[in-house]
């Protein structure tokens, strides 16, 4: 299997090595061809923003990377390991890949602290005291250590999403996936979550982020990917992407989302 430079990436590598490589990947839901011939290479430390119209397959693409969805053709390699049906391999990859969801998906029956320590304790077998200490330091990083003993239902949306980010970070992931992390939030809470994400980007985390927050994209992305109808239509550095879009579909999309 050729895993070398089959992927047509337009931007230069940021780190030395490849974090994620997707080669000729296709996915179908029944007869519906959601993802068509996706080729994508993500380098360590790279920050990628994925945008595109609703239903274009953005969520599906990033969910394939940690196998919440299964692809039917082509290959996906995460840290050099191919995603196959092998359950052990999938769990190993999931330990390295954190994910933040649009609707937070915190566990409502556990306190914030328990949400954060659950996976380290049960998956990584970290002793409880150590896990709690780490959790508190991450809660400080997302600026809500005082909420540790509350239940998720008692927090605002922005706070919940920051807890969700901290929860992913507790597993020490090498890669973070974000699926529209701010689109379920009230406008006044968006910036507190984006601030946390910007800080995370500054630590050198490899990030793939589906978002329509173009200000954020400009600020942190190394590369913006535009998807439409299951294809990667265009990818480029932010400046080029915004000022000099190549395809008509990108121009149309940008005119729609930047018009307000």
């Amino acid at each position, binding site marked *: 299997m050729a895993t070398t430079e089959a992927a047509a990436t337009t931007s230069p590598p940021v780190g030395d090595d490849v974090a994620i490589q997707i080669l000729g990947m296709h996915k179908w839901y029944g007869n519906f061809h959601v993802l068509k011939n996706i080729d994508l290479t993500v380098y360590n430390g790279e920050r990628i923003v994925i945008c595109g119209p609703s239903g274009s397959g953005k969520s599906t693409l990033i969910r394939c990377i*940690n196998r*919440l969805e299964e692809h039917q053709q082509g290959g996906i390699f995460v840290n050099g390991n191919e995603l196959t049906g092998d359950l052990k391999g999938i*769990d*190993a990859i*999931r*330990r390295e*890949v*954190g*994910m933040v*969801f649009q*609707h*937070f*998906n*915190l*566990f*409502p*029956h556990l306190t914030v602290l328990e949400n954060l320590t*659950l*996976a380290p304790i*049960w*998956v990584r077998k970290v002793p409880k005291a150590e896990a709690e200490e780490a959790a508190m330091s991450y809660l400080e990083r997302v600026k809500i250590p005082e909420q540790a003993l509350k*239940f*998720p*239902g*008692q927090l605002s949306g922005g706070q*919940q999403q920051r807890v969700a980010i901290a*929860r*992913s970070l507790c*597993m020490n992931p090498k890669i973070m996936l974000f699926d529209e992390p701010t689109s379920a939030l009230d406008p006044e809470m968006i910036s507190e979550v984006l601030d946390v994400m910007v800080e995370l980007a500054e630590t050198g985390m490899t990030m793939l982020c589906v978002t329509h927050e173009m200000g954020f994209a400009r600020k942190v992305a190394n590369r913006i990917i535009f998807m439409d109808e299951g294809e990667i239509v265009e990818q480029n550095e932010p400046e080029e992407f915004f000022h000099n879009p190549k395809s008509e579909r990108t121009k149309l999309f940008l005119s729609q989302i930047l018009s307000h």
Partner: protein
Amino acid sequence: MTDNSFVRTESHPDLPPPVRHTGIIRWMRQNLFSSWFNTFLTISSLYLLYRIVPPFLEWAIFSADLSGSTYQDCTSGGACWAMVRVRFDQFMYGFFPTTERWRVDIGFLLLFATAIPLMIDGIPGKKYLAIFVFAIYPFVAFLLFHGGFGLEIVDTAQWGGLMLTLVLATVTIVVSLPLGILFALGRRSEMPIIRMICIGFIELWRGVPLITVLFMGSVMLPLFLPPGTNFDKILRTLIVMALFAAAYMAEVVRGGLQAIPKGQYEAAQAMGLSYWKTMGLIILPQALKIVIPGIVNTFIALFKDTTLVLVIGLLDFLSIIQSATTHKNWLGTSTEGYVFAAAVYWIFCFSMSRYSIRLERKLDTGHRN
């Protein structure tokens, strides 16, 4: 409607106090006599209560007899509680040998002494209590009730009364919940074979009346077993009832599983939790909490359904009372028997119901996301 803005010149009259804090008259006017129809209902209910309660109290308490050794000794015209008094031990222990009844007492005291603290908040060492109740106690109870290791063997044919009812109910409840959870998970499994087996099992047991199942267990099952195998009748009943209850429990639990948003599974998976850890730590704690009322409902139904074992000749609490009231000394006391039985069943079922309400309150952690 020309001028719709004005300045109030006098202060606002005091608002009536909130409904909850007002006097009984107002409460009655609002709740009992708010319309002519409600007034009618109230008055007819009062009339009914007047016709039922005083005569019942007269019968059950004021002109009841507690002493005497046959129905003929009950001469006051009210209830003949002498029957319950004379037969009380039998109602509790069945035909358990009199000299060995302390074992039953200890068995249940031990259960209450360990299981009740388990249900109360803030009691330390619950982990050890739980280990004792679920892992050690069953063996202790078996030894005490059945015998062995120096204790005289008491054949299960001698078990009866409330003791038998409680044994049947406790074992069925304790076995059916985990079994039901497994079947519910199996029914939602992605593996077709497991799913088919679980659906088949659940639908088979749900489709057959408990009485039929009990007959099958006690009459037909032995026909299929090799001759000479002596498979205890109560054990057979327990197995059959536990499986029956598990099928119902599975459907109750499945209802809870379906209420859990997909995002909960995805978040757990995305962190690398295995299937069993996802279920045990994330999904089941939430799903079971949602269906506590349904689970307790099933428990209560089960508790009362234990009375059906009388059709296969087991002398549970109800049937031993029935047999006492048909004894020649006590002919005519069946009302007393049924009232007593009803009161005891009610106490147990009502306690379960109260406990479930407390549990729900305790586990409520606010809004779900």
